[in-house]
């Protein structure tokens, strides 16, 4: 899978209320949720981004609520991956369960500016800033998470055991 696009930068502790405000949680329809993706962090985000673009954020991305609507809205908006210095625990788990690619890398976040063209190799986790030519590594995906991805996500994994 190819991850390639422009970087949109966000600060630290971007919480799930900023990713998808609760006022839109009277639905779980991915396309409806996508319309409001990142709305309270940057109201212009959806009008600026194009599918394939990446979110690049500081530490503790996705803190707060357990709402799966947060990674759902990001994925449905067409964001190809999220790179952050660290992720909140529930968001991390949710992202894997629903197949949103996420990468943890302090150096990549530090070495990517807003608008840079970024590409990520899914398997190796190598992140390339095509604007500056610099290359970064990301924290390896834990083996069990790799197994989940290989199985096609948590539900497919469970189905095999049913």
């Amino acid at each position: 899978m190819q991850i390639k696009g422009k970087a949109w930068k966000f600060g630290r502790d971007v919480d799930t209320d900023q990713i998808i405000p609760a006022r839109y949680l009277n639905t779980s329809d991915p396309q409806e949720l996508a319309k409001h993706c990142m709305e309270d962090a940057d109201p212009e985000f959806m009008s600026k981004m194009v599918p394939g673009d990446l979110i690049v954020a500081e530490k503790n991305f996705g803190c707060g609520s357990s709402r799966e609507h947060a990674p759902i809205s990001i994925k449905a908006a067409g964001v190809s991956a999220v790179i952050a210095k660290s992720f909140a625990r529930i968001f991390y788990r949710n992202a894997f369960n629903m197949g949103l690619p996420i990468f943890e890398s302090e150096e990549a976040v530090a070495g990517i500016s807003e608008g840079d063209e970024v590409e990520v190799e899914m398997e190796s986790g190598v992140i390339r800033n095509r604007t500056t030519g610099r290359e970064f590594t990301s924290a390896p995906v834990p083996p069990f998470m790799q197994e989940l991805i290989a199985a096609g996500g948590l539900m497919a994994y469970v189905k095999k055991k049913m």
Partner: protein
Amino acid sequence: MEVEKIMGMTITEKILAAHAGKEKVEPGELITAKVDIALANDITAPIAIRKFRESGAEKVFDRDFIALVPDHFSPNKDIESAEQCKMLRDFAREQDLTYYFEVGQMGVEHALLPEQGIVVPGDVVIGADSHTCTYGGLGAFSTGMGSTDLAAAFITGETWFKVPESMKFVYKGKLKKWVGGKDLILHTIGDIGVDGALYRAMEFTGEVIESLPMAHRLTMANMAIEAGGKNGIIAPDAITEKYVTGRARRKPIFYVSDSDAVYCDVREYECSRLEPQVAFPHLPENVHDVQEASNISIDQVVVGSCTNGRLSDLREAARVIRGKKVAKYVRMIVIPATQRIYQAAMKEGLLDIFIEAGAAVSTPTCGPCLGGYMGILAKGERAVATTNRNFVGRMGHPESEVYLSNPAVAAASAVTGRITHPEEVVSNR
């Protein structure tokens, strides 16, 4: 020859080991654990139910281990919310679930489940709600997850965990008047930050905790997630025993940490001089003494939620506002967290005190805490709330503000129209 010393386990490790059928677990280890209670609400259950159906599963693992509580946008706030609640109702009926709570019996999930004895000490509880960590106050291992994880557990009765490292918090001294569990946990989050316990278990100990009433323990464990924690937990004791007696629907098991258990960090707090704490916008870590907030005017006060909507919270607020009036142009909204709390507050005369003061009293709902309904803020408005989050836009307009406090501070602030130490209002009597 060296003899390998077997180190002791923390309460969190012991509960996880028991549910994984193992004698010992270690931090970092991946385990599959049996789940005692799996919980979802009207926001998160619809996705879990859809995933359950998509998998082709027909029957849930056990009709007694799932709790569905429509509490967030219920009583239904609009047609879409009504549709979401209907999904829960239809699924509960189809699967003949034991624990489904209709409006009229429903309460805020994390107040309701302990009150009804559905979660008990020693349990492993997962919930598609981040404040599922509340039950650590009882000495259970409980943590929030997403809807897909819930759907998988509905089918298998199990889930996977990475065993967390444990952080130990030791609270020493004697609390001043008007200071309680909410202030202890806000102070702690202020110290370690909103990711200070990321992926970790937070174990609350010390002489202050040993005499802390159950409602305050639940408040502390409730906000472990605001420090990024996987769970918050307090060793069960005589106070726990008293609380669960007559409620527990299953046999509680009391686990305690071994004296040689391993912690990745130990923090001690001298609490005798701790003042009521207030978290300023827009993170729960922006914590100050209440005195530093005394020039901040407010438009709304909310007393309620899974953090502070219990009977003792209402008593505390009533004690401050009794015989006083809510300031002009300020709205005070009081939301007892469950029907049983509502009824007890009515019988004790607490609701009369609130209504005479000019406060609105609502049927149980999460409503305003997450900016759902029943108390949304306009642009530029400011609220003091006994809830758990003060993120951007949490209670309404993205340019509104939420200050987090204990119930006594919230009530005192309603009287003066600015953030106020309870002493200032009560000593004026």
